[in-house]
């Protein structure tokens, strides 16, 4: 078992580019979801009120950028072909992966639309201002807020299923699905 030194995907393995992006988004989603709940619980008098929401929004923007790079990458550099498994499961995996991308896109977009609803920019770690869209809709912050919560909750549930499926491949099927995503490959390049 060796670390894959290649940046890009080939027919049998993931390059470390997509692998890093996958795990960054995974960690961010796992972290941002409870952080969102925590932010909901903060009142104005809390000392954390000025810092935690900035982190949530800034990490969210990093996720959005990574997600876009990942999608474009995927278009030009196909992931390795799926490992053999029953057709129904292969289809289920395909649907789940597509859905994970869609839910991620909606979550970051709706989050952006909450904070920019009144034309204010989002501060990215107090380094750059991400501007708002030139147009908005009535009660955008409330509508985007509802969507953000529902879709993020769906995302975390689907991600849990995704993780469970990966563990099933690793421990029950004993195939290299999970190892591939850790940029590990069988001996001999």
């Amino acid at each position: 078992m060796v670390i894959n030194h290649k940046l890009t995907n080939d027919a049998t393995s993931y390059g470390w580019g997509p692998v890093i992006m996958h795990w960054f988004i995974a960690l961010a989603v796992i972290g941002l979801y409870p952080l969102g709940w925590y932010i909901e619980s903060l009142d104005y008098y809390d000392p954390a009120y000025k810092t935690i929401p900035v982190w949530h929004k800034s990490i969210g923007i990093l996720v959005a950028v990574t997600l876009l790079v990942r999608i474009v990458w995927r278009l030009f550099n196909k992931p390795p072909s799926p490992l053999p498994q029953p057709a129904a499961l292969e289809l289920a995996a395909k649907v789940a992966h597509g859905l994970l991308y869609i839910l991620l896109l909606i979550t970051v977009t709706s989050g952006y639309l909450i904070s920019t609803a009144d034309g204010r920019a989002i501060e990215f770690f107090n380094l750059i201002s991400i501007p708002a869209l030139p147009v908005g809709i009535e009660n955008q912050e409330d509508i985007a807020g509802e969507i953000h919560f529902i879709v993020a909750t769906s995302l975390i549930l689907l991600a849990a299923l995704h993780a469970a499926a990966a563990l099933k491949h690793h421990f029950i099927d004993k195939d290299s699905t999970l190892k591939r995503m850790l940029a590990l490959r069988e001996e001999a390049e």
Partner: protein
Amino acid sequence: MKSKFFKGLALATLISASPLYAADYVIDTKGAHASIEFRISHLGISWLTGRFNTFNGDFSYDAKSPADASINVEVDVASFDSNHAERNKHIRGDEYLNVKEHPTASFKSTSFTPNAEGGGVMKGMLTLYGTTKEVAIDVDKVGEGEDPWGGYRVGFSGTLELKPHEFGMNYKLGPAAETVYMDLNIEGIRK
């Protein structure tokens, strides 16, 4: 039968024309010559202001018998606007105004005690956050007269001191922010 009808009509005309009968006004929310604003201390350092954009109501008022004045107002609580989307969302949410559970607030007057300047104290029942309590609003009369478009208007301003915790809102905004001042500007067009 016919004479009874005319008698009734004559009586009705008499009553409606009577100066003792207060005139009815509709609050000019259409032309936005009325506002429900709030003011709350920010940390005891400055004032944070905002308003409820959507409301409607009507009132009765006659300068000759001001003690008969009365008013009814309904406020769409979700129209809370503090000129900051994230704060609006937060305040409309379930920790604060909880507009989903309590979408409307209302004020129905019970009595008006006039003073010599045309203003006075308007008492009434305020329903907010699902709780109804009697409150008193200090009212100043601003002006009254014909408008340039053939109508007749009268306007008042008033301030209501409100303690949100008395209505069951138990949030933490710090010791300086326990009172919300509602600044009311009411212009009515005679019906």
